């Protein structure tokens, strides 16, 4: 498709590529990075999923029960990541925190997908007036910084884990609507849509049974990146004291509590932060990798 244009695009690059023919460790690393990202992401992700599912087996201690004999201990054989100001094993709290994070990610992304995807699909399908209104609305919502908007919504939903999940689900709606809208706008011009209309299929049937399966790629990618978004924002809300409340083992809330001990017990701040980083990284890696796998055109870049 459009091979002349494609070749013209490659001209300067081709010149560069020819310059380094032969074997190159550097180039090997580049392609390894491109192909291995997805599997690296999935492997880290699997480790987190196993930790969440088998938390009672993986975690050596009760994550909530205080132990006043073991306050603020440095990492050791007994306590892999050390203990916090209530003597609780940080490793166990991080492991149980995985459960909380996955729950939040799934529920919040579920809310965003169930509302945002149909909204975008219908707006994109009908076009015209409905689309213009939805489009303006989505534009307007993008003017709110996500975290600030989440904070404002927490005023309605109430402080706590439930309120934070709803808030994060709601702030992700515009992005879901935008992506599914642009996906359907390109897809609805296809002949099969016309054919379905001709035989008298209803609009919801055309949208959900005919078009949706063909526009799934960007939506699947969006969902996996949405998990990362949800986790980053929930931990931020919990860090500000607006999300999960003590004694729930939440990475964000634990980091907030750890701040007081930054001088005397910095490891308290290290491990929950690393957990967030690696889980979000895994989700981003697999999301980006998924995009390349589902869209062969992108791999060549």
């Amino acid at each position, binding site marked *: 498709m459009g091979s002349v244009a494609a070749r013209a695009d490659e001209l300067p690059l081709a010149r*560069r590529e020819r310059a380094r023919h032969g074997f190159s460790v*550097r180039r090997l690393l580049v392609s390894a990075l491109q192909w291995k990202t997805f599997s690296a992401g999935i492997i880290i992700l699997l480790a987190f999923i196993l930790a969440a599912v088998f938390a009672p087996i993986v975690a050596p201690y009760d994550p909530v029960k205080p132990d006043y004999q073991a306050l603020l201990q440095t990492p050791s054989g007994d306590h892999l990541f050390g203990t916090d100001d209530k003597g609780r094993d940080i490793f166990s709290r991080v492991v149980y925190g995985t459960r909380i994070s996955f729950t939040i990610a799934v529920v919040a992304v579920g809310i965003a997908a169930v509302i945002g995807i149909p909204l975008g699909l219908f707006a994109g399908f009908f076009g015209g007036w409905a689309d213009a209104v939805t489009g303006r609305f989505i534009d307007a919502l993008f003017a709110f910084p996500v*975290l600030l908007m989440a*904070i404002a919504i927490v005023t309605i939903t109430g402080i706590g884990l439930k309120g934070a999940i709803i808030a994060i689900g709601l702030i992700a709606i515009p992005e879901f609507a935008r992506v599914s809208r642009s996906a359907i706008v390109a897809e609805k011009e296809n002949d099969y849509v016309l054919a379905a209309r001709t035989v008298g299929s209803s609009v919801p049937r055309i949208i959900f049974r005919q078009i949706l399966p063909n526009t799934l790629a960007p939506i699947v990618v969006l969902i996996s990146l949405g998990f990362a978004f949800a986790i980053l924002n929930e931990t931020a809300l919990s860090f500000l004291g*607006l999300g999960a409340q003590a004694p729930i083992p939440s990475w964000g809330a634990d980091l907030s509590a750890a701040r007081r001990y930054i001088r005397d017990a910095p490891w308290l701040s290290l491990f929950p932060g690393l957990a967030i980083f690696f889980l979000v990284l895994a989700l981003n890696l697999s999301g980006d990798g998924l995009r390349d796998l589902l869209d062969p055109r992108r791999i060549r870049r």
Partner: protein
Amino acid sequence: MGTYIVRRLLQGIPVLLIISAVVFAVVAFIPGDPAAVILGHAATPENVAALRHQMGLDKPLPLGYASWLSQVIQGDLGNSILSRQPVWVLISRALPITLYLTIFSLLIALAISVPAGTIAGLRRNSWLDVGFTTWAFLGVSIPGFWLAIVFVYVFGVLLGWVPLQGYISLREDPVESLKTMVPPALTLGVLLSGPLTRYLRSSILQTLSQEFVLVAHAKGLSERKVIAGHILRNSLIPFVTVLGVQFSYLIGGAVIVENVFALPGIGDLVVSAIGNRDYPVIQGVVLVVATGIVLINTLVDILYAVLEPRIRIGKGSV
């Protein structure tokens, strides 16, 4: 040019109206009677009625919104429930601190990402490119508040660079002021440099594939002239529009960073307002920030049109 600017400014009006409606709705949808909730124990029928009137809650929703909006347009954002001060006063005290933080952060982000993105784009697949691209990818996965804590540890505990928390204004003591602002601004700047580097790199790659670059080489221009006069110039134009979008991200990040470093900016204002159920303050901050972001995006679009004549001639896609 004039018509473009007018058209672009007019486009902002419906967006601002929707924003104000959303902000109004946030409080209108609070379960129960928001006025009674706000006043708590101090609620008497008279002051509940007065507050309901101030917040536009004593009329049917559309009318209530209209009367609330007309007050807002006249610059009346109501009074804080807690301190009884006008919301406008609280915001005008906090906003300069947030702007100071965000602009400082933006400068740091640019100082990192412009050279990094340029080198990564021009020397594609080099070690530097692999390094910068990897950093850009890792960077988006780092939680901002955690990086802030890491900087508290590095600057406060390891380097002993005190004071680490609290705010000193530029007027009071410029040197100390900048010093206390370095760790928070570095947090946001480093985080922002990731996506900016990534964007500039792909923008440069796109420019490199344009025919005019080939022509410039063919004319026999020196490599330096081609890079500075042709490639960079054309790659930086789309980069400017991204900066507008990133401002929203910066303000969101400022909420977190202000919390960690105890800076009394608008993030701090809104977080403490939630705890106190100080709804007029929350409404005011969200409204002012969103309006500011719409204005910045409009300005960036106009700037874009000034730098890039093609936008003006074609129908604006926005």
